[in-house]
């Protein structure tokens, strides 16, 4: 854990979520959303302590290979098959401040586009040395990194011929329960991004581009792995300096 003794606790309410930037609940191009989308208006109100607070996770819970998907499910001396990559970036809030101690969990298909899951039926082969999950916690700068193989694209039952572009799923814990976020990272230059009904559930092209990680040539490790950079932005907090407060608070 970080020493937060010199920092004021974060107690500000979060910026309102821009619901036009996120995908709406009902996106008929993605068929499963049709019966899983609330139809009534969300109840909007300012955050309370129940949303401003959230669980924290310490670095001590991490295993040595938690951020190495090439090796964390591999037999000793072996490694996962596929294009070796490093994914790295920072978790920031909407004010541009680093989010320290954020828990990131990620999961993905293997290099052939096959998930290790009992409900998965795609005919591509499993890789015995690839599990497909990892996790890490951001450092003082909000930075994180993990090693994996580039996941393959795969077909899925939606339209007659829909394919998911290569992607990595991310789950992010900031400091408040209202910041909770799950998203997906895509890869620069992949023409399949723009054909995907799940990607296109996001109405704004600029918002989609926020999910596309560029090839980071500078951080590529010679003779080893290419690097992709993926920064993640969580909801920002209002300054609490002039909030109305009851006497005694």
């Amino acid at each position, binding site marked *: 854990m970080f020493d937060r003794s010199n920092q004021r606790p974060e107690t500000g309410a979060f910026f309102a979520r*821009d619901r036009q930037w996120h995908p709406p609940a009902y996106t008929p191009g993605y068929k499963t959303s049709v019966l*899983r989308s609330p139809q009534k208006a969300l109840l909007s109100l300012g955050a309370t302590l129940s949303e401003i*607070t959230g669980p924290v996770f310490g670095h001590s819970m991490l295993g040595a290979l938690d951020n190495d998907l090439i090796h964390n499910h591999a037999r000793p001396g072996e490694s996962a098959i596929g294009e070796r990559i490093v994914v790295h970036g920072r978790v920031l809030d909407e004010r541009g401040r680093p989010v320290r101690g954020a828990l990131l969990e990620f999961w993905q298909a293997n290099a052939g586009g096959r998930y290790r899951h009992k409900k998965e039926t795609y005919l591509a082969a499993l890789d015995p040395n690839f599990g497909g999950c990892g996790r890490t916690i951001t450092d003082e700068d909000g930075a994180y990194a993990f090693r994996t193989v580039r996941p393959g694209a795969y077909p899925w039952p939606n339209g007659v011929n829909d394919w998911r572009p290569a992607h990595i799923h991310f*789950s992010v814990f900031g400091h408040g329960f209202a910041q909770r976020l*799950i998203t997906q990272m895509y890869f620069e230059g992949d023409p399949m991004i723009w054909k995907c009904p799940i990607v296109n559930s996001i109405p704004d092209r600029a918002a989609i581009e*926020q999910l596309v990680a560029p090839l980071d040539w500078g951080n590529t490790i010679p003779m080893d792995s290419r690097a992709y950079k993926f920064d993640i932005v969580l909801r920002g907090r209002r300054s609490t300096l002039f909030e109305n407060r009851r006497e005694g608070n």
Partner: protein
Amino acid sequence: MVQTLGYLKETPSQTAGPYVHIGLTPNVCDIAGIYPEDLGVAMVGERAAGSRITVTGHVYDGAGTPIKDALIEIWQADAAGLYNSPSETRGTADPHFTGWGRYAVDGASGAFRFETVKPGRVPYPDGRSMAPHISFWIVARGINIGLHTRMYFPDEADANTADPLLARIEHRTRVATLIAAGTPPHYVFDIHLQGEKETVFLDI
């Protein structure tokens, strides 16, 4: 020209998809050995204060079918009404209670189950007291952005009547969608994503 505010946009959400378990509860989907235990499995230590309760239920889609690939997280105060979080400034929460739970619904039945303690009361920003409640967050294939809601307790009728969030619900028949059924200490909280019984979801 004026200065720029320089704010960033929040990263847009994408569905958790059908294989969320690989990432968040790998031991449930037969990926054993990477993590010793899935996060959020145990909320309550032996020495935790407060009365033990269970919360069970299902998540139903708009056709009334239980969803079998949902993942639910809950977040709540301890028995004294304190959150186990650095942003809790009113006191120190029970160290034997995490306040946070995660559950992948059963792949065959869609049932979920949390073992926790009954939360204490937490103040609303204006100082009024909120009724005891548990925050829920639901993700699944077909859910494009995680759904926030709350569960309140059927044995807290007076507190529920005075609760500032419940009071904001315009259509009073919908208040009941946030109040669990069951008999203490076993509560049942069914979540309906759509339809006549649609749960009140929060933009909070």
